[in-house]
């Protein structure tokens, strides 16, 4: 199945043609870095973006300077730069994962209530999060396994899920046991309801919403093979769907 042009990619025609060609040529499941590269390509120029802890952080490695993306970190900063190394490391400049980062020109700092107002007020264009499960209608479960002895910790996950204009999830499609993480209804405790708009996995990119799940592209499998792995009805995306 071919890659559909989405609005983000469409508005930056040519910038990442090389990257796109690479992905199209792949008939293998995507590795984490290729997936991060794909997400980065799909972010519209000029966007304000929050990248969640873990796999989503990889996306920052593939954002092109021409995209003019501004990264938000919920502990009080817009204009976050790459991870700090060596003498750049400054204990007062960390990201939400508590990793030392750097500051880009045009950055700004603010307190926690102002920082979450940016999220909760719907000002972020995209937030990219990891997930345990995503439902066919875009419910997200990514903060708690629900295990009775687990100590819960939510951080900013619920605010990010609720506040951003678009929530992209990055995850492997299957658990280690081969179960689909794309599900009819989440069995893990929810982070947010109907909030996820796209799911980037090693095997396919899904568009989720009230009308169910569309498949934008597949990696190393056919739509039919994908349907066998996933317990929710899938259909191919329309060209103008995303």
């Amino acid at each position, binding site marked *: 199945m071919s890659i559909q042009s989405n609005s983000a990619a469409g508005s930056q025609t040519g910038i990442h043609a090389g990257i796109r060609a690479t992905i199209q040529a792949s008939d293998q499941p995507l590795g984490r870095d290729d997936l991060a590269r794909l997400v980065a390509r799909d972010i519209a120029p000029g966007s304000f973006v929050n990248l969640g802890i873990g796999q989503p952080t990889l996306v920052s490695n593939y954002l092109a300077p021409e995209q003019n993306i501004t990264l938000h*970190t*919920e*502990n*009080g*900063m817009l204009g976050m730069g790459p991870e700090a190394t060596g003498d750049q*490391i*400054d*204990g*007062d*400049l*960390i*990201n939400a994962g*508590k990793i*030392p980062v750097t*500051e880009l020109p045009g950055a700004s*700092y*603010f*307190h*926690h*209530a102002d*920082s*979450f*107002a940016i*999220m*909760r007020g719907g000002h972020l264009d995209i937030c990219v999060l990891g997930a345990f499960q995503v439902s066919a209608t875009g419910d997200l479960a990514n903060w*708690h396994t629900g295990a009775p*002895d*687990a*100590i*819960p*910790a*939510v*951080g*900013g*996950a*619920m*605010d990010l899920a*609720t*506040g951003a204009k678009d929530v992209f999830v990055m995850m492997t499609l299957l658990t280690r046991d081969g179960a689909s993480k794309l599900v009819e209804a989440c069995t893990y*405790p*929810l*982070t*947010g*309801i109907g909030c996820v708009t796209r799911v980037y996995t090693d095997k396919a990119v899904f568009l989720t919403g009230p009308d169910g799940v569309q498949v934008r592209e597949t990696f190393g499998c056919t739509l039919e093979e994908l349907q066998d792995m996933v317990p929710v009805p899938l259909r191919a995306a329309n060209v103008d769907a995303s």
Partner: protein
Amino acid sequence: MLNFIDTVGEAVAGIKDGSTVMIGGFGNAGQPFELIDALLDGGATDLTVVNNNAGQGDQGLALLIKEGRVKKMICSFPRQSDSWHFDAKYRAGEVELELVPQGNLAERIRAAGAGIGGFFTPTGYGTMLAEGKETRYLDGKWQVFETPIHADVALIKALTADGKGNLVYRKTARNFGPIMAAAAKHTIVQVSEIVPTGSLDPETIVTPGIYVNSIVRIDSSGAAAAGKTEQVA
């Protein structure tokens, strides 16, 4: 009334058993380590502590929890790779946990300082963290009613204070400091530097002195060194 105080011990001396204490910081950035250590030394117990986390490693808030001085934690992210003291106390049923989404934590603290009696927010709607809470459909979405978090005392860290108690912070160490300063009845600040009144540009002051009660200067070279060590740990 603003006081400049010589030692962290004197600064925290008035904190009573049973107090609600807000502690600034996100990770190590903005953590008032010296004030927390003084609170540990001071002996106050039966505390409700408001912080983003629930202590890390074998220092600061983690030790306060280990020593059984914290009755209840209000935080967004207690479980970390090195939150072993909290984990043990929690599993033993010896510390109560109110888990709050980070943005709700920030907004509830802000509400306390701003005189807001409660507010509706979409965050958490439909999740177990909103169970039992009032909900209402507003602005096209379901929202959850949240109430302010007030405190008796706030312990925060800033970069610089002037003679009026005006504060500026440094980079992401700002985090919870400004909203906690406003939400607590008594705000104690550790700073690296105290400058004469009039030295700070009035356009750039983040926390006006009206929110500050006690200021203690911590030797900044020492504090910076400690920060580096803790960052690596």
